[in-house]
């Protein structure tokens, strides 16, 4: 294996690398997935509180979700979920050879960014009680 004789590891100048938009969307897919994984206990706990019949759980659910920090975390998770969802659909489409061309791939990455942010705004305002 001749390539193994090259010096390793290579040190890439990350701040100088320019990625296409799809590259950033892809990194955000990973970041959003990691965030959702890390916050999974919070989400399961909220599910438990939302479904528990006892009144203390109802009060606890309100207290927790009224907390500003929790609201911000949930807003972040909302974006993470929506980005991961939209990007996932893009990946599934590319799997079946839809949007493989360079320009189409750029456009779909842009669509993922715009749609997930727009939906975050729509659902986020609901989360924050604006309507």
């Amino acid at each position, binding site marked *: 294996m001749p390539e193994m004789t090259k010096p390793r590891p290579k040190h890439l100048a990350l701040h100088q690398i320019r990625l296409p938009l799809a590259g950033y969307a892809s990194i955000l897919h*990973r970041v959003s*997935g*990691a965030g*959702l*994984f890390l916050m*999974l*206990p919070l989400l*399961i706990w909220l*599910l*438990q509180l*939302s*479904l528990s*019949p006892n009144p203390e759980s*109802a009060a606890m659910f309100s207290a927790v979700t009224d907390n500003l920090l929790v609201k911000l975390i949930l807003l972040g998770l909302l974006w993470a979920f929506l980005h991961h*969802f939209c990007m*996932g*659909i893009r*990946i*599934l489409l590319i*799997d079946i050879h839809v949007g493989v061309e360079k320009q189409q791939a750029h456009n779909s990455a842009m669509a993922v960014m715009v749609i997930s942010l727009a939906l975050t705004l729509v659902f986020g305002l609901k989360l924050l009680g604006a309507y």
Partner: protein
Amino acid sequence: MNRLVVGAHYGLMDWLAQRVTAIVMAVYTLIIFAAALGGATASREAWHSFMANGFIRYISFLFIVSLCYHAWVGVRDIWMDYLNSAAVRVILHVLTLLALIGYAGWAVQIIWRL
């Protein structure tokens, strides 16, 4: 490329599992969203009776299992990409797996005791 691809084929299995679990979760998401539009989240009582429905409990179980399997593949890939030490990687793989199995049990009992 002249290379014989042999082995346990878990690369293909993971690729497929990641797609199947993603589709299950996406469909579930749309069902829950439609239900919310239809008033399932209007009150605690409405939410409880919606989630206690037999079919919804069934698909909620599929969602939970899909989520945990999907997260396992994804998080494992993150550890594989960035951690060079095999010892640290193994420890985090095990911790990730144990966490996800526990989350699955926790979430399933929330749904199935309704």
